[in-house]
């Protein structure tokens, strides 16, 4: 958070998301890479930016923004360490690296097949969760409108 | 059904599109520098100063009364009165404009200067291609550029010119009759004096009403 302007920060977030997509592409995960750009750059960052516009938060605040600039670094480090630890400890990693004959190609058909066959329950649960969140948002918006009347 | 209106609209525009190639007469525009529309007779663009005879400076009708300068709403006329006098169309000595400038960039073509002029000296021109590349020099038009012969006026506004000429002729006839009568009276009084030598003695002709222009 070294940038004062909120919109600049949002745009930089979009750039970093593109960078993440490039990492995916570098790892030969074409599908995930393009989906990352389509969803995160095309939709999520636009949503963030839109929310900033609607809340009139574009004016850069005066004075110091963060009171402990090092705390951010510590949190980021902690998050990275947790993720790295999980990845290293994960069973999938040992399976893949220990078994070179395993088919790990990220073919779109495989992804689709796995998603609607093997992992259909998590998919449905996630869908349900998102729908619930959507309905909740609508209800909150409705209440606000009533309050205005 | 939804979309039938769109289809109707598309058919209409397609008809226009194809029709414009089949029959060029349907095109509403005139390709201006090549083709020109005949201007309506009452077209007006920018004033000019009318002169009689061949010499523009000698025959200028303007007597520098400065009414137009005072009446001009955007104040675009600038007149400097002459020190000496010269005879006007009836032979009466009058002032003439030493300087008569109109600022083209300020003029709004309202024709008020024409309405108020008692001497039929300023009229509206139909010339509209007035743009220049010199913003500071060419937009302020001087006396020499503004002066145009009466024949030009007769050409561009025949009806108005006829009325104007008739008024001037009547004016002149009246002045001549009066001069003749004065000469006769003077001859009868036994003091023959030539008219030109003593302009002060001439009685001022009755004021002319504003020219009766068709509006």
């Amino acid at each position: 958070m070294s940038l004062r302007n909120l919109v600049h920060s949002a745009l930089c977030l979009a750039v970093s998301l593109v960078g993440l997509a490039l990492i995916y592409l570098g790892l030969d995960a074409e599908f995930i890479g393009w989906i990352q750009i389509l969803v995160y750059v095309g939709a999520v960052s636009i949503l963030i930016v839109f929310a900033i516009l609607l809340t009139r938060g574009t004016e850069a605040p005066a004075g110091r923004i963060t009171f402990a600039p090092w705390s951010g670094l510590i949190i980021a480090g902690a998050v990275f360490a947790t993720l790295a630890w999980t990845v290293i400890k994960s069973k999938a990693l040992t399976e893949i690296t220990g078994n070179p004959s395993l088919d790990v190609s990220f073919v779109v058909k495989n992804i689709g097949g796995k998603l609607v066959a093997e992992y259909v329950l998590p998919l449905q649960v996630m869908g349900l969760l998102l729908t619930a969140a959507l309905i909740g948002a609508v209800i909150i918006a409705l209440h606000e409108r009533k309050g205005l009347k | 059904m939804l979309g039938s209106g769109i289809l109707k609209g598309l058919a209409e525009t397609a008809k226009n599109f194809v029709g414009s190639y089949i029959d060029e007469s349907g095109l509403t525009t005139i390709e201006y520098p090549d083709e020109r529309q005949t201007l309506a007779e009452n077209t007006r663009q920018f004033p000019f100063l009318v002169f009689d005879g061949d010499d523009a400076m000698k025959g200028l009708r303007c007597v520098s009364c400065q009414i137009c300068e005072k009446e001009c709403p955007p104040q675009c006329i600038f007149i400097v009165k002459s020190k000496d006098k010269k005879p006007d169309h009836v032979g009466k000595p009058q002032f003439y404009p030493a300087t008569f400038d109109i600022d083209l960039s300020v003029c709004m073509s309202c024709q008020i200067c024409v309405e108020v002029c008692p001497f039929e000296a300023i009229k509206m021109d139909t010339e509209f291609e007035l743009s220049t590349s010199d913003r500071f020099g060419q937009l302020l038009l001087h006396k020499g550029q503004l002066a145009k012969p009466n024949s030009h006026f007769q050409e561009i506004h025949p009806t108005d010119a006829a009325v104007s000429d008739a008024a001037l002729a009547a004016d002149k006839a009246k002045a001549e009759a009066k001069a003749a009568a004065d000469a006769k009276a003077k001859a009868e009084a036994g003091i023959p004096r030539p008219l030109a030598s003593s302009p002060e003695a001439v009685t001022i002709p009755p004021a002319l009403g504003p020219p009766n222009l068709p509006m």
Partner: protein
Amino acid sequence: MEQIDQIFVHLKHGVVAFLPEGLQPLVSILISVTAIVLVFPLLFALTTVLERKGLGRIQNRPGPNRVGLPRLPTLFPWLPKLRLAGFGQFAADGIKSLTKEDIVPREADRVVHFLAPFVLLVPVLLAFSVLPVGRNMAALDLRETGLLFFFAAGAATELSVFMAGWSSHNKYSLLGAMRAIAQMISYEIPLILSSLTVVMMAGSLSLVTIVERQSGVNFGFLHGWHVFTPWGFAGFWLFLIAACAEANRTPFDLPEAESELVAGYFTEYSGFKFALFFLGEYLGLFAISGLGITLFLGGWLSPFTFLNWMPSWFWFFFKLFLMIAFFIWLRGTLPRLRLDQLMNFAWKFLLPMTLINLVVAALWHFTNSWNPALRWLLGAILLTFSYWILGRGFEAKFRPRTYRYAS
């Protein structure tokens, strides 16, 4: 004929073969890039003139017909005056926009303001790389993710619109940008869903494969374009409407509504940056038209088998020309929508229609063994019925208004 069809491919291979081994991939890429960067902007230049002429004819006037070659009497006294029927217009416009002063508002966010036109233009040019403009003529054949790449590249345009609108520090720009983003997000869903039917039926995301899947022959002479199936026909029109909105073309040109917002999100752009936005918009239109052609109109395939001798790239560009002509025709016909009509249309008509179309496509897939006529009839009835039902609600809502006090 084979030679003419593949002339550009052979040309490229010939040039590349001359070079040392190490340089070959790089030069091959460069040639493809140059071709895209040259051909489509030239097409844009041609389109601007054709569009103005076409709109002029629709409105019963001749359109631009004067600008030809400049006559330089001092240099070439022997050169006659050439008008070229007004086709010098784009060069004159280009020179004008290059020499114009580039004005940046004092309050503007300079960096973002400067970057916005490039963020628009570069992804659009990238999107062209996956379009097969002829047999063996796709710059980039992404076997796994061609279509996805196209849409991912398109995603950046929204960001550019926002950047332009926000950085200008102008209320019209901001309003235009907000409208544009709302519109693009709303219409991206029907756009992607209608292309998804094709992906489902072709079983591939690669645009090259999708074109090849349409090369089947019906009735002995007609190529099996997707548009000749009920789901393809409906999908094509749904795609066309969504594409129109995505490219900000009339009747969906609310983001830059001249009469309301000056010029929308690029109000504060002048000179060459304005020209870049203009170029980006038209290239976006070409790209999305090209995608429509690839998905539904058989790409570079000829319509009839007896026309197969004509070069494939000719067919692609001919179809592209027809698509552009159709968009110009629409622009000359329809007035602009209101914002609420726009949103209602996207969410209450286009989205349900695309979902129904997906179901119809699935039905088509599973009734493979049926009599073709019966299959056709089933799909057509389903789609027409839902179109009628959904359209009825709209017609009831947007009846001609009666003004109680005015009339």
